[in-house]
């Protein structure tokens, strides 16, 4: 056993030496969600980046499909949200793709949620609570401060994997940080009028967005996390909506709009479909466009 593992280590080292001996090759990056593909593109514009999902796919329920195994097999870096968001498919991809470089966060595996404090961590989890995440809400990419921390850590990871590109990664991070920090006060000013407003939303997908701009999600279209809206639950939401203090019903681009539309019609409330990620609508072509779009869509219903 020992001899075997040593042999494998020697082989791995030999291989990595061969790789670094080559001319500066671009990293192959596998992103679990489009927001992390977009963030990686900001930080490593020349890398080959592949996003496993689109903004129209629920990242909780992704098939560990052949194309993803093939892409992960070739990846130097895997960037995911973490906090168990991908627990139903990422371990299977890691097992099937036989790529030792992306198995450990010491090497080419990066979880955004590991870099920050998540909201809504739970001390104990029971399935009767629905499909909840003990490690907190994983949809962190709508918090600009947290996302900037993630960007800094991701840039360090890129440098660790590709030391030859260190200077370029440093420049890209500085550039992104400047633009992001300029945009943040602008977004906050634009969202000022939304502060204190109440919404009904689907899942806790926009937990960080609402936390940041001061919107309160007073009810959830899901009766329990991960469960689709039921007619009984929608009826109870209608009773809540009739109190008259709700601004809008918010769903993400990958969520079924039927329950929201029914409630919207009955309660005479606007339904807003927000892009869950980059690519979720025409104006969300990068992270800046995504933030611009969600704020302007929410402002549109005031």
């Amino acid at each position: 056993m020992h001899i075997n593992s040593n042999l494998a280590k020697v082989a791995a080292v030999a291989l990595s030496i061969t790789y670094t001996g080559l001319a500066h090759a671009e990293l192959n990056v596998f992103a679990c969600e489009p927001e992390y593909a977009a963030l990686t593109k900001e930080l490593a514009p020349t890398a080959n980046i592949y996003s496993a999902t689109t903004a129209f796919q629920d990242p909780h329920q992704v098939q560990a499909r052949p194309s993803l195994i093939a892409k992960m097999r070739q990846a130097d870096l895997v960037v995911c949200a973490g906090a168990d968001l991908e627990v139903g498919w990422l371990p299977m991809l890691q097992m099937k793709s036989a790529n030792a470089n992306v198995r450990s966060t010491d090497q080419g595996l990066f979880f955004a949620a590991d870099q920050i404090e998540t909201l809504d961590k739970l001390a104990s989890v029971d399935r009767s609570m629905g499909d909840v995440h003990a490690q907190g809400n994983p949809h962190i990419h709508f918090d600009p401060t947290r996302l900037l921390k993630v960007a800094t850590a991701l840039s360090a990871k890129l440098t660790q994997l590709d030391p030859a590109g260190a200077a370029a990664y440093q420049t890209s991070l500085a550039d992104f940080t400047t633009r992001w920090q300029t945009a943040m006060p602008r977004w906050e000013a634009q969202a000022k009028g939304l502060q204190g407003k109440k919404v009904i939303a689907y899942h806790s997908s926009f937990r960080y967005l609402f936390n940041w701009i001061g919107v309160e999600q007073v009810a959830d279209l899901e009766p329990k996390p991960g469960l689709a809206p039921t007619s009984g639950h929608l009826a109870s939401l209608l009773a809540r909506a009739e109190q008259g203090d709700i601004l809008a019903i918010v769903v993400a681009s990958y969520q079924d709009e039927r329950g929201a539309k029914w409630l919207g019609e009955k309660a005479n409330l606007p339904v807003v479909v927000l892009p869950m990620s980059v690519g979720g609508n025409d104006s969300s072509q990068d992270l800046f466009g995504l933030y611009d779009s969600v704020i302007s869509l929410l402002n549109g219903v005031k």
Partner: protein
Amino acid sequence: MTVLNTRVSLVALACALISPSLWAEDSSLTNPAISAVLNGYYQTGERPLAESPDGFGLGETELALSANIDDMFYGKVTAVVEMHDGDTELNLEEAFIQTMAMPAGFSIRGGRFLSDIGYLNNQHLHTDSFTDRPIAYRAFLGGHYFDDGVRLNYVAPTDLYWTMGVEAFKGESLRAADEHGEREFKNVGVYTLYSKVGGDIGDNSSWQAGLSYLRNENGQVTPHEAHETEDEHEAVEGHDHSHAASYTGQNTYGADFVYKWAPNGNYKYQNLSVSGEYFRVSDFTPTDLHPEDAPSKDYHQGWYLSSVYQFTPSWSAGVRYGEADTQELHDDHFHEQKLKESEVSLAWHSSHFSTVRFQYTHQNGTNFDGIEDDNIFTIQYIMSLGAHGAHQF
């Protein structure tokens, strides 16, 4: 088949399950992923070669434990509790280690594990959309083929998914019947080769197709012995519960495909899957068979085609049609048999972790265990608790 000391082992597993510190979503050194699958049913009949008798019953109750052992190895144990004729048996379905750090897309798995031939075989029964495996699997692979052995697998560094592997197994459960225990079987009885390719078609669909070959050194039918009476023959067949294959041959060829579709590739609300497999088992006739006793076809074959549509997050419906076309040795000559199964199922999923299924099976047999025109209704629940296992495509 390993039958452990049931009482002691169950207690040990129960203790492991109860220990609160072990409950965790993630597996790590101190937190192995632990899961249990509960499976019970009531049905009005029994499908031939299946493991679930009629009336009330428990299907496979699984207890699984897995974790990374160190940076080089991953390990998994799956114990299956089964009831047979009033006896509780604890069987090991999986107890394997797998390398995690081999270079260049290679990996080795050793121990007891599910063979990677075909599409369904490497999947656990509780993930199936029907109560029993298709008749082709029950006839040729004993439902699902797991065994003690070793596998070398390779994944190519291509954008089109391409994997291939070779396996060697003990092959005990695929040995030809040997009623008198006089036959000398080879210790390493089964070798397999397989290859799969797959990819996406746009954002909405994904596919995979595979070819497999299984060499069974012990698959040739044991010659009939002249002094044997029909009574003895029947007596031996009666109590033979196991995961053993009923029809064996030296060479088995398989082809499989699966296609999945979801609107925008979003599987949460609606999705469709279509899959099919074909198996052909040949070279089973005894060497000293008189030419006039030769079977009408010198191969067994079986196939199925199935489709499952999940139309809301809570409901899915499936249809499946399967056939097995086999030759059975009776005295000194072969009888041709045929079984056709048409099935529909409707399942309700209260969450991702619980399923209640209604299934109707119509069987049409020719010379097959006395089945001519049978109807079977099944109601079944399958629920999992503990760690959220990742599912295969």
